[in-house]
Structure formats: C-alpha cells, structure tokens
C-alpha cells in the first residue's frame, strides 16, 4: 500500500525526522490560505501514486499566495499518467546547499533489511546505482538487530555525506529504520534530504509503501487507503477477494496456483495469443469462487474466449466444473470456453463438463493451442 507524500511525512515526523512546514489542500482557495500562513516562497506538489510528478508539471515553486492559488488551480484536477490529482501538498520552499538520499527497503537475496545512503539526492536511486555506484553505500540489518545512529553515521560518511551533517543525520536514519520496522513498511525513502545553509537537514520528499500483509497490525492504516491508480477490474477483484491482474489481451485465464497461471499465460503467448488477465483461484476453491472468477472475467469487454486450467490437488475438478455451470446460468456466459482439468475428481468434473458447451483439453499446451485458435476466429 503506497502512501501519499503528505501521509509519509506525517509518519516521518512521528519518528523525529524534520519535514518542511506545510499542509494538504483540495481547492485553490485552501492552497492560497496555506501559502499565506507559510509566508514567503512555497512549493505546490500534486499528491498522486506515481513517479515523475515533476516532469509532468505536478510540482511548482511559487513566490506568493496568489501564484500559489494559480498553481493550485492548475495542478488540482490535472491528469498525471492516467491519475487525476485530487490533493496538493503546499509547503515552504527549502533552500538546499546539498541534497542526499536515505532509503530503507527489503533485500530479498540478503534476507534482511537494507539501508541505503547516497550523496546524490533528488535523483532516482536506480539511476545513481547504474551511473555512479561509488556514490551509494549500503548496510544490512534485521529488525531485531536494529540500526543504531553510529552505524548511520558510518554509512553516511562512506556515501560521501558532508562531515558536518553526519551527527544529525545519524538520528534521522535510525528513526527511518525504526519507522520501517514499527510501521511494517516495504519502502521508506527520503529523497532528497535537503541540508540548508545553517546545517539543518530536512526531508524534502518522502515515500512510504506499507506491507499489505501487515495491515492487520495497524488498524489505523485503513483510513490512509486511497484506491486511485488501480484498474476498475482490479478493484472489483479485490472486493471479490480474487487474485487478479489485468493484462492487455483477449483471452480470459483462470487457474489454480500462481505459477501455473503464469505458465498458462506464457503458453498462450507461445501459441500466438494474448491473455486478458491473470486470475488465481488459489487452493481448494469451491464452485462459488470459480463462478465469481468467471463473472469477473466477463466484466472485461476485451475478453473473447476463456481458458480454465486446473491441476486438482486440494482443488476438486468437480467443484470447478460446477462453478462453470453456475456461471453459464447466472451471467449468461456465452463466450467460447476451453477447460483443462486433471487430478482430484477429474472424472466427475469431466462428466459435468459434458453438459456444457465447453471444449476440453488434456494438457496445458493443448489447451493453449485450442484457445488461441478459438480466439483467433477458428474452432
């Protein structure tokens, strides 16, 4: 779950990390009011869950409240990569003498949390890693070991931070790690950390992504959730508790198990077709789940044919076939369907299928061949 910059900054302040003074606004009048309170130069920043706001014109520096109102009216409602801007953050403008990067994220191969510092702030960290890797330093820790300010100071020195800043930055870094651990984040990033003439360090931009699996530990976070940015079909899938990803093709795909569904989509592609979605009904799905999955796929107008690929283990083939039967009745499913069922209760499943117009296939490759032929117009 991605948070908006203004939400991320609220959390960072709780962990002792300073951020610019500012507030969030939803109308140009509010922008004007906040800019007036701040006095002086300000920044108006679109709050959208997407990178590259700046290049898209979603960030504007203004010299006075009137300019702020104009900027607000232009940015609010703006479309950035398909997302409509509903909120802007209005903050004091910081004059930086240097800009740094601080980030905490999960390192899969080290099986630990990695803490990243760079003397190149304000730039995409992947870009820095590619072009000037010597300007990045990393350390690893588990949540239990923690990350102490002295480690942060070493890391910052190593990454080329100015010596004068390391005493202060140590605590902020340690706070960022603590935030990461206590809030169950996947990513906590300050980019850039701006250092001012008088030696203050301020988180000028902040990004936090929370671990969806840990939201049960943070009941308050449900309030931070904003659905913008998701495909409407993916939103519908979430309501139905189905694991679904929208793709660009015309063949609806249903299977049990993520690896199997991915392989099925690959097989369709290998035969010259294109899947319309990824949809995993999981292990042990009952007929109602299969029915719901089919209903969801039919909401996608691009879908011209459907492939069901189930390897029965805990999942019973008869339940899958029943689900298809129900969907045919409930939503008038009249698109061509290819079904491949093997494993637990295979015979029973096939018997049910014989009552439907569905085409059956014996192997995954066979099923992919048939569905591509059908979607391509043949039979």
């Amino acid at each position, binding site marked *: 779950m991605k948070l908006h910059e203004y939400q991320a900054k609220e959390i960072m302040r709780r962990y002792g990390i300073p951020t610019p003074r500012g507030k969030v606004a939803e109308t140009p009048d509010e922008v004007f009011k906040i800019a007036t309170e701040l006095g002086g130069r300000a920044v108006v920043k679109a709050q959208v869950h997407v990178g590259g706001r700046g290049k898209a014109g979603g960030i504007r520096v203004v010299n006075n409240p009137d300019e702020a109102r104009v900027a607000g009216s232009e940015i609010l409602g703006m479309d950035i990569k398909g997302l409509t801007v509903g909120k802007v953050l209005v903050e004091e403008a910081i004059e930086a003498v240097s800009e740094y990067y601080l980030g905490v994220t999960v390192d899969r191969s080290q*099986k630990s949390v990695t803490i990243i510092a760079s003397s190149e702030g304000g730039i995409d960290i992947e870009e820095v890693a590619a072009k000037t890797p010597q300007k990045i330093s990393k350390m690893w820790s588990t949540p239990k070991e923690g990350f102490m300010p002295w480690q942060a100071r070493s890391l910052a020195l190593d990454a080329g931070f100015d010596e004068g800043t390391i005493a202060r930055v140590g605590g902020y870094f340690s706070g960022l790690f603590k935030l990461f651990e206590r809030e169950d984040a996947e990513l906590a990033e300050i980019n850039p950390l701006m250092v001012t003439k008088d030696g203050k360090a301020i988180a000028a931009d902040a990004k936090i992504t929370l671990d969806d699996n840990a939201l049960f530990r943070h009941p308050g976070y449900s309030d931070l959730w904003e659905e913008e940015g998701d495909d409407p079909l993916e939103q519908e899938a979430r309501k139905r508790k189905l694991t679904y990803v929208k793709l660009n093709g015309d063949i609806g795909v249903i299977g049990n198990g993520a690896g199997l569904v991915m392989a099925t989509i690959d097989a369709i592609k290998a035969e010259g077709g294109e899947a319309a979605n990824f949809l995993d009904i999981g292990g042990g799905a009952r007929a109602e789940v299969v029915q719901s999955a089919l209903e969801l796929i039919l909401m996608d107008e691009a879908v011209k044919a459907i492939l069901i690929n189930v390897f029965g283990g805990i999942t019973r083939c008869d339940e899958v076939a029943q689900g298809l039967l129900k969907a045919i009745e409930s939503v008038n499913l009249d698109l061509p369907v290819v079904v491949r069922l093997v494993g637990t209760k295979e015979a029973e499943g096939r018997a049910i299928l014989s009552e439907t117009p569905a085409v059956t296939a014996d*192997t995954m490759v066979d099923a992919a061949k048939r569905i591509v032929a059908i979607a391509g117009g043949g039979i």
Partner: protein
Amino acid sequence: MGIFIDRRTKVVVQGITGREGRFHALRMRDYNPDVVVAGVTPGKGGQDVEGIPVFNTVLEAVKETGANASCIFVPAWAAADAVMESFAAGIELVVCITEGIPTLDVINMVSQANVDGLARRVIGPNSPGIITCGEASIGIMPGQIFKPGPVGVISRSGTLTYEVVGLLSSCGIGQSTCIGVGGDPIIGTTFVDCLGAFEKDDNTKAVVLIGEIGGSDEEDAAEFIRNMTKPVVTFISGRTAPPGKRMGHAGAIVSGSMGTAESKVKAFQKAGVPVANTINQIADIMKELL
C-alpha cells in the same frame, strides 16, 4: 535417501486442530504413518486428531514424541511465533505452509534459523511443502502423483510443480525429493541451498528447477550450477508478466529492471544450463540427460 527429510523424520504439525492443519496432517500420515508424530495447538493439549496427540507447546511435543521437524499451518499473524517456538524447542527443520506473513516477520523467523551459528532450516513460507518420494511428505503436496526415482525437483510454485511432476511420472521419470521453496520474496531455503543438497545426495542424478519472475534466486542458481556435476533442467514462468505487478505470489514481481524472466533465462543460458520453453520440453530434455 533424498534431501532434508526421509522415513526417519518425525513431524509435529503446528495448528493441527485448524481446518487446513487437520486435513493435511492426515494426508501426510497417509503418505507415511511413522512420520507424523504430534500436533500442537495452544490450549488444546491432551486432545487428539484421529489418534495424533495434540500438545500445548512444541517443547512438550518434542519431549514426548522425539519430533525433529515441524509443519506450520497457523494463521499468518501467528506464524513467526510458531517458527520461533519450534526452534527454541530444538526442531531443526520447519516447513512453513502459511501464506501472507508480514515480510519483517519472515526476516526474523528465517534469520532465527542461523543464530548462534546453528544450521537449522526453514522451508518457505508460502511453500507447498516437501516430499521425499516413498519416504515422507511434509506439507500439502498430493502424494499420489509422485513416483520414486532419480530426479530432484525444486520450485517456487505449487500446482505448476504438480504439473511438472505429473508429466515426469507419466514419462517414467521418478523423483528423489521435490521441494516447493515458497512464493514469497523472502524465503528460508533457496534454490542454491537445494541444489547444494541434491549435488551431495546419492539418490539424485539430475534436477529440475522451476523458477519464476522476481528476485535473483534463479541468477544465483545459474552461478551455482556451473560448479555442479549433476545436470539441471530449468523452466521459468511469468515470461509475459508486466513489470510492477505481483503475479499471485508475493515474490513474483518485476521491480524496475530487477527480476525479469529474460534476465533469468539469460543467466541460465550463459551458464550452459538448458532452459525448457514449455513444460513438455522439461521431460524431453530430462529423458536425453538420464
């Protein structure tokens, strides 16, 4: 015989009185009645699940039954605690079936395996389990599709593994041990760990590795295979997956330029490791190798 588990393994099932725990504990016992010795559900000590004794703590189970492995079916919020409890009780192998565990919990439980220089093992989380064919099954894999033989199977997936195993068995190619390492971003036992064990296992002559997008375990495996004496056949799923989307498994995601199928296929090819383009090709290549 095979790797990590065999007919002498003694398993305690944590969360045995839950729906899933009960169902799969009995299926594991069907596979080999000697292997499943105990269950644990706090507060339900003294009960039994069709004859399998239930204890309040893993320590009691270990003391009473000599269990040395554990299979975790408890809910995600309690899973890290269950793993820690196992290790504290002296368990050496934990197979964690539970899916959806917070990542930081996974890091803590996985790092616990190696504290104080100990060489204990977590398989998973989000693993379908492990089977050493004809000897022992821990987890949720359907025992009837497996057939004893010389091929080790490693996979990040469940049903796709069954698909491959079903194909191998139908072609007369049996398996030594099949391991689902789990579909999460952080897992306790990696491809490399399994490959190392298979390399040393006398019963294994060749290995099938079923990878997918996300992370760099396949790239690490490619490097490792360079120094192996036994042949490995690989397959990568998710070749057509779009970047930035989790494909069902929490770990199956292309982040930025990291974790693409191309990178993995290229790594294997560079190391001279055959990559099957379809499931069927896995069996074809394996037939030639054996």
